[in-house]
């Protein structure tokens, strides 16, 4: 129920955006709950974007894991 799927904003018009869920699946979603711009990845829940995904933060998460792995190898 709280499932949310990342999608890329392909076009924007007011509160509505066309987003790409990958594999060419396009859908109109409501973006009134976020401050998103063209090209952003948003997290879509039940037809509404609920948050903008931060690529920088995603990479930081991976780097956090790498740190754990480095320690694990010690």
């Amino acid at each position, binding site marked *: 129920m709280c*499932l949310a799927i990342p999608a890329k904003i392909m076009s924007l018009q007011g509160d509505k955006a066309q987003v790409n869920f990958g594999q060419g699946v396009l859908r109109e979603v409501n973006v009134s709950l976020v401050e998103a711009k063209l090209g952003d990845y948003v997290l879509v829940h*039940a037809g509404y974007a609920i948050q903008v995904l931060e690529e920088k933060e995603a990479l930081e*998460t991976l780097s956090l894991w790498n740190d754990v792995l480095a320690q694990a190898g010690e």
Partner: protein
Amino acid sequence: MAESMRFRNPEIAQNIAEKIRSVAPKKSQVKICHVCGTHEWTITHFGLRSLLPENVEVIAGPGCPVCIVPAAEIDEAVLLAKQGKVITCFGDLLRVPGSESSLLEAKAAGADVRIVYALSDAVEMARKELDKEFVFHAVGFETTAPITAVEALGDLPKNFSFLVSHRLIPPAMELLLGIEDLQIDGFIAPGHVSAIIGLKPYELFTKIYRMPTVVAGFEPNDVLMAVYMILKQHSTSEAELENEYSRVVKPEGNKKAIEAMRKAFRVTSGSWRGIGKLDDSALTLKDSLAEYDARKKFELKPSEGKDIHTGCQCHQVIVGKIKPNQCSMFLTACTQEKPVGACMVSSEGTCRVWAKNVAANSN
């Protein structure tokens, strides 16, 4: 994001599992509780429990917003459906048992019950069929409630209203800590609820209850990482609030969503199936939006519902007291095809997730 596949890379998973073994206590039992149906799906689907030491257990709390809708509120939807209103809802809700009937049974008996993917689809239907009354049964935790808020504050047709069954997660987490014979040593907090509410509402658990709490994402390595972070805190008797899911969850949450909820709802007490009444755990539309509140619009009277059917142990499963396979009806009298309790109905119900996994592994 090409990097995204690494969030489920099995080699990384094995390495995190190794790290988990190195910080886990040698003998004493540790129980980590999550409160999200999607976390349970990830854990079960990817077999994450098999990667953990025997004395580290991950248990499922009340994380399925459909399962905890009390029968009395399903009864309200069924009553409205029988009166000729069009009931719209997400698919998960359709088979959830009321006291006497589910919405699916009402539909089979001729009522107009329609599944929608998005709330806006229901609003569109109402605009096109102005001669009918449309009611959206709004179910969900903080992830979903802002959507109801935005639509309720927006431009709705006169023939549209909400039957609000939204609930809030932090009060349910606090309830778990008060259950005497339920051991909990750490919380995995739900990522998408947290994307909305941010980190602050969980401070209570670390500051007052000294409970390690980690907000986690939904990829298998996110969940393993959260288990590791909790065990690490546990090993040094710390109780910190950590955010493993920072690519989505900002400390302040989603301010627009919080503001929309604050404008549209007031926080009230609410009943949870199998749990009972919890203070400050439910949302009700504010009086300024009364015309969109189906309970007021159609003068529904509060009634007692029958939440748990004879033999069903959903109330024990919901709070993590027993596992689905400890219920004598699991996969015998209660199956995916013929569910008895709400936990077997919803795709995020703990029993349903476990049953699906049993079925997948036996094929």
